[in-house]
């Protein structure tokens, strides 16, 4: 239904996406993973038309959309950083979003109750804590019955109770056959919710498949370990690479992104005796 085809995007000299192609399967929940700066948010924003790619196409129903607005009518998006007009109240802000979208939200009351915001409706947005703003953001997104949801690190600012409620709401959407795309660094969320994983490293896709396929590929049984192996292997094979030290042939040097040095060395065909910072 939606996807990215051969997207290249640079910010100045920094290449954020380097020929990224991803298909987001309909009715499934895709987790877009990768270390900080790997291009996850840029990929999401490209999909939404918030970032203009240097090359490549955004696909909607398999083709480049002629009207971006029409595409966004079907998407409800929760951004990573929640900042709104400071002098509006929560009620006014949600009313504003409803006023600007062609379809009316159908679950405002339910979501306000779920995220315990009903009593805070008359409060101006400027006095709210980061977590409360994130809850407002969650309501803004989930009050719509949209066919596609995009969440950028949705649970990062939420307390455990609210994160639980958020995940329950998202699980319900998933069960209803919605297409959901999200980024997260919280492995528990990924194991619990995602059935399709796309792993980005330095702006390139290094894994695209199911969670089981990820486990099978890496020989691990937990998302955290599997991802560490992915990063390590990519570190051995990509442009950062493992480079032999110039001074001593018995030393090897790793890129900054390598977490599991032993696995990285394994991938490079070497066994390590000692790891030094």
């Amino acid at each position, binding site marked *: 239904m939606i996807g990215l085809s051969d997207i290249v995007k640079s910010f100045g000299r920094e290449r954020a996406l380097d020929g990224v192609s991803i298909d987001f399967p309909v009715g499934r929940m895709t987790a877009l993973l990768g270390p900080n700066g790997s291009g996850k948010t840029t990929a999401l924003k490209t999909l939404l038309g*918030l970032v203009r790619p240097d090359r490549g196409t955004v696909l909607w129903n398999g083709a480049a959309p002629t009207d971006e607005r029409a595409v966004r009518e079907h998407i409800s998006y929760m951004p990573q950083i929640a900042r709104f007009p400071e002098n509006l109240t929560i009620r006014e802000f949600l009313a504003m979003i409803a006023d600007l979208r062609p379809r009316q939200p159908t679950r405002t009351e339910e979501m306000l109750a779920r995220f315990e915001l009903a009593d805070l409706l008359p409060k101006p947005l400027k006095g709210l804590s980061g977590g409360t703003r994130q809850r407002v953001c969650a309501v803004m997104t989930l009050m719509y019955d949209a066919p596609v949801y995009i969440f950028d690190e949705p649970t990062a600012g939420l307390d455990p109770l609210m994160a639980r409620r958020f995940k329950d709401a998202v699980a319900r959407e998933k069960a209803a056959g919605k297409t959901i795309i999200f980024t997260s660094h919280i492995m528990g969320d990924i194991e619990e919710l995602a059935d399709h994983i796309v792993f980005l490293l330095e702006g390139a896709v290094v894994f695209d498949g199911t969670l089981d396929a990820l486990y099978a590929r890496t020989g691990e049984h937990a998302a955290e370990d599997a991802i560490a192996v992915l990063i390590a292997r990519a570190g051995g094979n990509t442009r950062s690479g493992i480079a032999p030290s110039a001074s001593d042939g018995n030393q090897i040097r790793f890129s900054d992104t390598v977490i599991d040095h032993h696995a990285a060395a394994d991938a490079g065909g070497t066994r390590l005796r000692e790891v030094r910072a």
Partner: protein
Amino acid sequence: MIGRLVKHQLRNVLRSRWVFVLTGFFLVFTEAMYQASGSAAGMEVTLMSVVLIILPLFSIVYGTMYVYGSREFLEVLAAQPLRRRDIYFSSWLVVTGAISGCFLVGSGVPLLAHRIGDGAMGGPLTLLASGLFLTIIFTAIAFAVAIRVHDRTRGMGVALLLWFFFALLYDGVVLFAFYALADYPVEPLALAFSFLNPVDLARILLTLQFDVSALMGYTGAVYQRFFGGAVGMLLSAAALTVWTVIPLWMGKRFFARTDF
């Protein structure tokens, strides 16, 4: 859709403290100038510097800050099924409308009140119209700069530099050029140069209105003859309109391509 966007954003801006502070400043300053000079004419001449220097400065600084401060909110809007063009124009309209409103109410009320008696409305109306145009132009420049330059500090630097150039430096450069070319008949050229800077254009219109052009010697006479006629007035209004359209159009193009 622009109307709806303006309504919601204007509600937010009108609740800011600065709106009242700025209106109060214009009100107190204008009235104080009347009290200090003892005449409506003195008040109007003094207000010229506010219109030509302070208003463009505030417009460019606030316009730039608004865009940088609203970036995440503009992202939320851009993720909705809205045209970027509508988001851009509505945000600019809100900022320019709020600053213009502060000026028109704050300075307009005492300006017009002190002229009701003698009915000489030409001065106050030219002042208000010039202020309005300069606000519109400098907020448009601010939007174009802040959208184009992603780095906040650099963007503010560029905006301030542009204000400094138009409000202060340009005159100095032109004056120096004419001083160097004093032996040649450069008056028609001076006329052309004044069209290249909106602040200059407003300054000339105000100077002529307040009848101090005699101080400018032969150049003053050339200006008086040109701007005093219908063609001159039409041309200057057209030039100010062009000065509004160019940065607005550039800002719109930048906004259509910008990454959030």
